[in-house]
Structures are given as structure tokens and as C-alpha cells.
């Protein structure tokens, strides 16, 4: 399986790429269908997403709520801006940790690559400072438990 890349670009972008062994249509559906999102967009082991709203149309609502089943949890809200089945999704999201984080504008592309799909997710934060905060703390909070597990593995 091809490795994931995560890079900063310019002052305000974070770019994540990953290849999948499935068609762009399947990968696109897995990114927009709430029933499919609930199966994988979970972060750390032991976390679930009991609430998943994903109205895949321009202006459609996004709301993901995660819980660790032990009273811990956080949520994300957003809106879809543009959708081009099955090649491109533009949406805006922000986390509540519990304080609201600045809006993250995300463009996700799904390009056919042989029999698979190359995904490119480009996040744009309002400014360099916000990006710095997201990279150093925002993602950390959302994935806290997985780091604990990683520490055990390393």
C-alpha cells in the first residue's frame, strides 16, 4: 500500500496524499456516505462516531461526533461547498475541542491512478499561526489516545 504523505505548503496549507486500491467512485462514496464514514473516520482505537451527518450537496451540513465511550468526546461541524462526483469535494470544517477552532477549508481530489485512486487533500487555514496551532495541538487533542498507543509501539 502506498504511503501517506503529510506536508506543509506555503504559509497556510497542509497537504495530505494517499493512494487507495479502489475506484475514485468508491473512495468518493466512502468520504461522503455517513454509513461508510462511520466505519473508518474514527481516529484512535476504541473511539466511535455515533453521530454522522453528511449532506453531500452544495451548502449541505456536516456534523461528526466522536466518543471514547468513557465520557470523552469532541465534535466537528462543517458545510459542503462544491461536489464533483467522483473527483472532487470542497468543504469547510472546524473542530470543537471544546472551543471552536478557526475554519479549515479543505479540497479533496480523487484522481484515477491505474486501477486505484490517488487522493490529495489540501487544507487551507486562515493564517500561518492557525496552521501552527493545528499542527502542534489541534490534531493532537483529536488523536490523543492514538499517540498513547503509538508510544507503546515505539
Amino acid at each position, binding site marked *: *500500500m502506498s*504511503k*501517506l*504523505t*503529510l506536508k*506543509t505548503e506555503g*504559509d497556510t496549507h497542509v497537504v*495530505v496524499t*494517499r493512494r*487507495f*486500491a*479502489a475506484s475514485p467512485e*468508491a*473512495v468518493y*462514496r*466512502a468520504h461522503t456516505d455517513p454509513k*461508510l464514514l462511520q*466505519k*473508518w*473516520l*474514527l*481516529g*484512535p*482505537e476504541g473511539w466511535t462516531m455515533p453521530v454522522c451527518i453528511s449532506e453531500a450537496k452544495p451548502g449541505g451540513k456536516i456534523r461528526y461526533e466522536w466518543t471514547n465511550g468513557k465520557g470523552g468526546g469532541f465534535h466537528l461541524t462543517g458545510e459542503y461547498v462544491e461536489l464533483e462526483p467522483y473527483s472532487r469535494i470542497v468543504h469547510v470544517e472546524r473542530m470543537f475541542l471544546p472551543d471552536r477552532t478557526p475554519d479549515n477549508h479543505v479540497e479533496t481530489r480523487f484522481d484515477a491512478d491505474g486501477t486505484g485512486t490517488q487522493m490529495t487533500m489540501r487544507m487551507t487555514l486562515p493564517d*500561518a*499561526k492557525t*496552521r*501552527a*496551532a493545528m*499542527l*502542534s*495541538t489541534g*490534531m493532537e487533542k483529536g*488523536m490523543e489516545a*492514538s*499517540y498513547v498507543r*503509538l508510544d507503546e509501539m515505539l
Partner: protein
Amino acid sequence: MIAAVNLDMTFAALADPTRRAILARLAKGEATVTELAAPFKMTQPAISQHLRALEDAGLVVSRVDGTRRPRRLAKAGIEAMDQWLAMLRKALEKNYNRLDKVLAEMEAATNKGDKR
């Protein structure tokens, strides 16, 4: 000795394009403030201020060489940042490994449907 690295400060220091350019220059080898200021068309005090931010973030260290104070990359700071980004990659990878399985299930379901 292992430097205590504040990642918040590290990423904040990296948010500035001039500071990233300074790091790129120092990656090639140590340099003095005068040498660093030359390609940036900036005053030495301005460069010194950027260097201080990089030093506070644990990314750059200096040494004394007579009247010169050449700067170089701080290995511990750079490594801590690399490790952090590697952890973020691993955490994201966990989600995408699950997605691989979801996609395989979707394909299996489609193939089953075709046979009917």
C-alpha cells in the same frame, strides 16, 4: 543532552517564510548573521530577531568563535519536529488503513451483486 522542545513554538517559528529560508540555508552548513542577512536583503537586526525566534523554538543554536557567533541547525529540535510529523502521519494512516478495509468490503459486495 536532550533539549526540551516546545512544539507550539517550533511550528510558530516555522510559520514565517524568512525563518524557513534561514533554516534551508543553515541546512547547508553554519553561517554568521552577516552571511545570513546577505541573500535576504534584510538588516542584521531583523535577521537577528528571526534567529532569536528560531533559537527559542529549539531549531537553531550558536557557538562562539572569536568575535563571530556562527549559527547552525539544532539537531534535537529538528528531530523532535520530524518525529511529531511522523506521529501525525501514523495517526492519519490508522484511519486510512481502516478505509482500505471499507473499500475492500464495498468491492466484495459489488462483485457479489454482479453474480446474482
